[in-house]
């Protein structure tokens, strides 16, 4: 059973990521849906798509909840069962998993999963407050601990325990900005220097502006199908062969470790075991770099390097586009942007492009196996999915 496709991705769509002035979440989602329809001419969306799961974190941004029905209608899928999943920044990783369950249940053969967030019309303090809602209110938010603050606590602890440096953190930003520079849909298509990253203003020491992901508008979606019928729709399916999800205490302070996300480690183990794949067999990965330290911790939690050696791995250059294991070829949350609800399926979109050789300027050669790591909040939720080229 190991390595058997759970579902197959038959199409995918991504809106432009960035400051999409004058556009509402539902309208941005429609842009992603349209791309997915256009990529798959054999799909009749109204007839074939039997359910929608959409990740969306915050109704505060647009004063709009009830996202499932809203975006289903705007995607031209009126009347299908549509459900919002909310797991903070892992909302669409959870939507993907819900879609996999729907297909595996036998109830639906074709499902749309995706995510959306509209953020840039609000002020930075407002966004800071809304994002903090993904953390513990009575003990973290109440005492002024922000979201960057939580990852800064992890960074300080990692630096103290393993000798990780601010330069190594900045190297994650430089790498991901280089990749985002090659991605026409990225929010910030701009190369940055190490010096620029290190001299940017402090947000939550030791994290500076360029250690933080962007406040971005965007939407993403995938069309997933029962593997047996995928060929009806496309000659180039991408199979999902492993899926894991785990949770942890909402408060960072309650957790076993400040330098590792236990939920991510559990989710990764589940996904690797299901896929029958080891970390060393992964050719390409999209990891949740909401802050630069998060990518370094992800390397360790996913088994890409030994515990404590994440800083060394970024320094080695092996995770660059031309390296042994390219990570965040899309530019990551750092440069492509982080419309929180859209991020999980946006990672899957990038792997879909890479594994079907449609990633243009940032295409990595000969990739067979990809991994996506999507984290909610400061690590109270994590999902990990493993993708395999279908042909």
């Amino acid at each position: 059973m190991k390595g058997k496709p759970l579902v197959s991705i038959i199409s995918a769509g991504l809106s432009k990521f960035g400051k999409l002035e004058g556009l509402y979440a539902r309208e941005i989602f429609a842009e992603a849906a349209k791309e997915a329809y256009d990529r798959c001419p054999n799909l009749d969306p109204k007839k074939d798509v039997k359910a929608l799961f959409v990740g969306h974190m915050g109704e505060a941004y647009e004063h709009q909840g009830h996202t499932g029905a809203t975006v289903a209608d705007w995607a031209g899928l009126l009347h299908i069962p549509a459900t919002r999943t909310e797991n903070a920044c892992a909302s669409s990783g959870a939507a993907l998993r819900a879609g996999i369950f729907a297909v595996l249940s036998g109830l639906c053969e074709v499902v749309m999963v995706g995510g959306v967030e509209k953020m840039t019309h609000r002020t930075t303090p407002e966004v800071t407050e809304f994002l903090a809602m993904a953390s513990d209110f009575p003990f973290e938010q109440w005492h002024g601990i922000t979201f960057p603050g939580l990852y800064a606590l992890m960074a300080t602890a990692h630096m103290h325990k393993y000798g990780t440096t601010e330069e190594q953190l900045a190297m994650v930003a430089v790498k991901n900005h280089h990749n985002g520079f090659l991605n026409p849909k990225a929010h910030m298509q701009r190369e940055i220097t190490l010096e620029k990253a290190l001299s940017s203003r402090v947000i939550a020491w030791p994290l500076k502006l360029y250690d933080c992901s962007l406040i971005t508008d965007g939407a993403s979606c995938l069309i997933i199908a029962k593997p047996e019928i995928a060929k009806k729709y496309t000659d180039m399916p991408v199979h999902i062969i492993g899926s894991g999800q785990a949770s942890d205490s909402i408060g960072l302070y309650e957790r076993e470790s400040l330098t590792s996300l236990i939920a991510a480690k559990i989710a990764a183990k589940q996904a690797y075991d299901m896929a029958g794949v080891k970390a060393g067999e992964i050719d390409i990965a999209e990891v949740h770099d909401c802050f630069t330290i998060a990518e370094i911790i992800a390397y360790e939690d996913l088994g890409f390097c030994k515990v404590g050696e994440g800083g060394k791995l970024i320094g080695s250059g092996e995770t660059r586009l031309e390296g042994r294991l390219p990570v965040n070829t899309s530019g990551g949350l750092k440069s492509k942007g982080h419309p929180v609800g859209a991020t999980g399926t946006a990672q899957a979109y990038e792997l879909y492009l890479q594994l079907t050789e449609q990633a243009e300027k940032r295409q990595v050669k000969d990739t067979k196996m990809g991994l996506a790591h999507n984290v909610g909040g400061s690590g109270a939720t994590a999902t990990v999915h493993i993708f395999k080229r279908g042909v």
Partner: protein
Amino acid sequence: MSEQTSFNIEQFYKHINQGKLMGGKCKRCGEIHLPPRPLCAKCFSKDFEWVDVPQRGKLLSYTIIHVAPPQFQQMVPYAVGIIQLERGLKIPGMIRDVEHEKIRIGMKLAINFDTSAVQSQWPQWPRYYFKPC
């Protein structure tokens, strides 16, 4: 619910208002919950007693916040950390009355209570903070 059975966050902050840091100790398995909970996450018992939690501990990690939500904007930059109390319990909070450059992982801190700014609207919680001791 009688006060004796209210092992919850509301009651935790009522104790803070009285200058007390208290956790809920499970009478069955002995686990101390900080903050207190109505259901023991270890053994599912609902039988608790209040215990004083050590008010001193050491700093596990910290950060200096420069960008804050609107209600904290006037305080930036400020320090926050996670403090390991003497019996292994952990609690986050602000670190005050110390120059930021002098904050170090492992430094000894003690809790202080600030009940001056309790609001009339929810949540009517006081605040606590840590300072060197």
